[in-house]
């Protein structure tokens, strides 16, 4: 069973420093196990279990991955500060959560 993982952070352009790491265990196109961790959105790194549960046991489609991104965003509560507003951070968690999952799937194919 192939394992694959990927991280995504966008430090280059923004002083906002959100880090997302995704780990997937695949059986063909079906997701057997999954872990998604967020950094820089709370006082400690957190795992978003609700987003993980959405993916486990399912065939990963773009729609499902987008839903997992929304779930990750809804289950975190970032703060507003001089670098970015909470609103922006929250939407970026959504974007940065779905991208590494897609990237992990892409690297798995290779």
């Amino acid at each position, binding site marked *: 069973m192939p394992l694959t993982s990927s991280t995504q952070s966008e430090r280059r*352009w*923004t002083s906002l420093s959100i880090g997302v790491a995704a780990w997937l265990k695949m059986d063909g196109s079906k997701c057997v196990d999954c872990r998604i961790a967020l950094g820089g959105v709370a006082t400690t790194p957190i795992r978003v279990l609700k987003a993980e549960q959405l993916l486990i046991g399912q065939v990963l489609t773009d729609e499902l991955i987008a839903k997992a991104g929304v779930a990750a965003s809804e289950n975190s509560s970032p703060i507003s500060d001089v670098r970015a507003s909470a609103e922006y951070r929250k939407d970026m968690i959504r974007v940065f959560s779905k991208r590494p999952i897609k990237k992990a799937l892409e690297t798995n194919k290779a």
Partner: protein
Amino acid sequence: MPIIHMKLNDEPVEALVQDNRTMLDFLRNNMGLTGAKKGCEEGECGACTILLNGKPEDITMKDHRVFIKSNSEKNISYGEAIWMYEEKHFGKAVIGVGSFAHDGDKDIYVKNEGNYAPAYSFSTGAARVEVDDETGCIDISDFIFAHDCGRPLNLRAVEGQIEGSVLLGLGFAVYEECLFDEKGKMLNPSFRDYRFPTALDMPQIQTIICGEPDEEGPFGAKEAGEGSTAPVGPAIVNAINRATGLKFHDLPVTPEKVWRAIKEKKAAEAAEAANQ
């Protein structure tokens, strides 16, 4: 004060000179030949265009080359002339010191009226950007910069100035922002929070150096410095406008501003669609 006799540029000269005055000061101040520069102080190579007592050979400068007056065909480059001089004088270096100041109107400094500079440079720029519509991040993939600096005295130096200008312009257009609280305390007083572009953020830059030599400037040069930062911001922001249809009126255009504007635009479009 002694009286001196000499032949200056083929014309006999008789003048009263102070005892301690150097030949260079005499030529510059008494005779008004300000083309003579402090360098070898011998006037031997003729580079300063003054011929003392008919020496050296009658030479003239034209189109960045050295000509013999009696033969309009025979000429050598500056480099060759200097090399020949150094060879003849056992490696003695040719060193010149010069400066240029525009003898313009002093009123500009006192009354704020008149002309600031003898010549003004012109420049324009164009950027190719990619905007991430989810994060609002901007990636500049290409930059073309055309600058009219009259005659470029040193091509590599002008290119360096232009590339530096693009870096500065990129900084004020998309990165650098001073943030203050209501009491005036700076909120981002470190290079971690006050961001500016690094070498990694630089786009590919193509420089075009164009324009005619200027009549007023030294050797036909104009400027290649501060003025060339001006078109960078507009080029980037116009490119963002072309890509997204959004207009930004305050710099820097940070990812969050782009993200918010895209979100507002989408909401407005959805509201319009719902009304119809």
